[in-house]
């Protein structure tokens, strides 16, 4: 009996504790410790994914108690994929952010890494667990760490943004907790599969309905679905770059994962779409979310802020796809979890490099960046194309599935919203490109252009952002394989 499922989550935790000790004893140790912990986590996540693809769902009994008495890790294709995604992104970001952490957190690096690891632990645990209450505890770990991190960022705005985040986050988590309570009242169990089995009898019960609504609202608040997004832009754009690079891609995606998990495993499709048929309303909501996110992004003057609003818009994609109620839409949503995590990561890596060099990323500060940091910009451009949805980057293919799902359901407004949002993204990013490419203006013919002095970010950051940006294309080209080996078998 191998313990890889536990190791995925536990190694980062152990590493966090040792890093915390090292922060008091020998600060320089905590970085390698953190690195090692995450490396092990990545490795075990990989092993688990392979194992699941070969031999189906893994059930791992923590403390050896059979569910529903004990807590079990139930790892199927979906969360195996997400686990690998989380751990590898966290690892890569840690590699990339060695320098920027020193730059941003004055002599608190050790504690920073500890919090960082705890955050990753929380995300991994949320993804791995098969127990409703355990999910709550881990969500709270992630939230708590992100509160701290956000406050560590911008000295003036950080704490305020963070405190608002605390209030809204607590409301969200408490709603989820209440939902779990109602479920427990109805079923007397906390294990997801067990709850699902017992629920079969009580489709019509008002308690289950309320539980469902509470859970969904809680999760939506946590994932910043419009109009519950108000906390996200400030929180993400005022946090330290090293952290926003990992929170922006992962946090919301993991919450989307949780939503899909609840929908599929706990409540079940036919309860949601047949008994309640809420699909229409939510798809409309996500349509509005997409458009609103795009429009608000247009209004931003700061690159980081702009990107956060794009995240809000992307959430709409995934929620809409998941609630489409057909296989294509759900495929698109799940594929987009992967793709969007990668694209956002690539974008924020590039932004991180810029911040490292020019430390303010208002749009006007980006003048002549193509000449100054060409490699960073190359990565940024690729990621931007992926967000816009230019083939063969991965963004295009998840959009492909989402639109197909919308067409199949006849939700044309959603398809149109997707198209419009890619147009909006095109406008957004080419606005940025123009600033970076044309300004400062050259006069008439280019003779006046001297070769611009190239001052790039450290190589470690460059390599990571380059790799991730290339992975966008590779993942895009192999998305057919991903869908066939991971997503479709899961949905079967």
């Amino acid at each position: 009996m191998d313990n890889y499922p536990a190791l995925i989550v536990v190694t980062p935790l152990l590493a966090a504790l040792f890093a915390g000790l090292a922060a008091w004893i020998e600060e320089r140790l905590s970085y390698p410790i953190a690195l090692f912990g995450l490396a092990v986590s990545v490795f075990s996540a990989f092993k688990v994914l392979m194992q699941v693809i070969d031999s189906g769902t893994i059930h791992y009994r923590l403390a050896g108690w059979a569910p529903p008495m004990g807590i079990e890790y139930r790892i199927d294709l979906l969360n195996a994929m997400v686990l690998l995604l989380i751990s590898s992104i966290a690892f890569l970001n840690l590699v990339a952010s060695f320098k920027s952490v020193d730059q941003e957190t004055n002599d608190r690096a050790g504690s920073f890494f500890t919090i960082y690891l705890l955050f990753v632990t929380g995300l991994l645990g949320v993804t791995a667990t098969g127990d409703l209450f355990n999910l709550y505890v881990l969500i709270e770990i992630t939230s708590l760490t992100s509160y701290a991190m956000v406050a560590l960022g911008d000295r003036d705005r950080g704490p305020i943004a963070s405190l608002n985040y605390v209030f809204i986050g607590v409301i969200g988590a408490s709603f989820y907790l209440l939902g779990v309570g109602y479920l427990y009242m109805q079923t007397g169990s906390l294990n997801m599969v067990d709850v699902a089995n017992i629920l079969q009898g009580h489709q019509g019960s008002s308690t289950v309905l309320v539980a469902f609504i509470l859970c969904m609202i809680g999760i939506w608040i946590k994932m910043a679905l419009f109009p519950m997004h108000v906390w996200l832009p400030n929180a993400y754009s005022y946090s330290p770059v090293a952290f926003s690079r990992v929170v922006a891609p992962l946090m919301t995606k993991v919450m989307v994962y949780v939503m899909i998990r609840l929908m599929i495993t706990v409540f079940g499709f036919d309860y949601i779409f047949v008994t309640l048929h809420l699909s229409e309303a939510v798809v409309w909501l996500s349509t509005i979310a997409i458009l609103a996110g795009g429009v608000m992004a247009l209004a931003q003057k700061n690159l980081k802020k702009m990107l956060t609003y794009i995240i809000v818009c992307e959430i709409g994609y995934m929620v809409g796809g998941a609630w489409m109620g057909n296989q294509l839409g759900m495929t698109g949503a799940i594929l987009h979890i992967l793709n969007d995590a990668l694209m956002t990561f690539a974008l924020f890596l590039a932004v991180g490099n810029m911040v490292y060099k020019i430390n303010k990323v208002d749009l006007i500060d980006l003048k002549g960046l193509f000449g100054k940091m060409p490699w960073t910009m190359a990565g940024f451009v690729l990621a931007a194309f992926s967000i816009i949805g230019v083939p063969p980057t991965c963004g295009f293919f998840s959009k492909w599935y989402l639109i197909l799902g919308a067409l199949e359901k006849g939700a044309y407004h959603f398809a149109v919203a997707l198209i419009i949002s890619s147009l909006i993204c095109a406008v957004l990013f080419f606005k940025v490109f123009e600033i970076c490419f044309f300004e400062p203006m050259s006069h008439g013919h280019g003779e006046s252009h001297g070769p611009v002095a190239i001052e790039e970010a450290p190589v470690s950051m460059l390599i990571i952002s380059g790799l991730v940006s290339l992975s966008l294309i590779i993942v895009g080209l192999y998305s057919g394989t991903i869908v066939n080996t991971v997503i479709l078998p899961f949905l079967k």
Partner: protein
Amino acid sequence: MKLLGFIVVCLTGALLLYGTGEFPDWGDPHSPASLHLSNYYIEKAVEETQVPNLVTAVLADYRGFDTMFETAVIFCAGLACFLLLRDFQEKKERFYRHTPTGIILHVKDAKKTLTVGREFEHMDKEWVPSDLIIKTVCRILIPFIQIFALYVVAHGDFSPGGGFQGGVIFGSSLILLAISYDLKTLVRRVKEKVLGIFAAVGVLIYVGIAAICMPMGGNFLDYSKLAPLIPGDPHHIRALGMLGVEIGVGIAVMAVMAIIYINIVSEGRHDEGL
């Protein structure tokens, strides 16, 4: 905003009440909540874990994984407070009071170090006359509180209590020290570094015990596999395991309580406060 909030609140309340509509009456012994799992725990837990306090049994064994992360949450909170508030730069000014006369020296710049005799006391900005009764009572009380805390931790298996409760009580004893004397005394007695290390070590004990089970051939947290390591009746191995983790939890909670208190009351400067 107020009106909007009011509407939202009313809607939520109505929703929740609507949900309670189909609840069984309060205390109904046949409500699903108190049948499925709870009966299993009540009937089986004692013979499976040898721990009569079912709450402890479920907390530290059946759902021990939750508890581990909840300890991690505590640790995280302490760390967060430290990160957010602690600033290491020296305070600008210092005050000394000549005990016999009550004359107060006000040292403006922090750099200047002056050696003061025994009859000078280093004081806060406002001098609070140290009350003999309070000090004495607390001096007597604190040890008992701490002993009681240890008891609550150790006896958690058999009576209400456990790591958290014990840890909180112990922490409160420290806070009492800070209140009755002043913050400096506490910080002098219990070094910040010690607290930080304790917080980490406490959680580490828990995770460590849980992790050792894996090389011993069990799943994570499976105390029953620890039998070869610990002498004594293998029946009680789970109880012993729980005791171990409870101790870890106690240490962590104690340390974190102190950290949070010290950082918040002194705005992270660790010099003066409540």
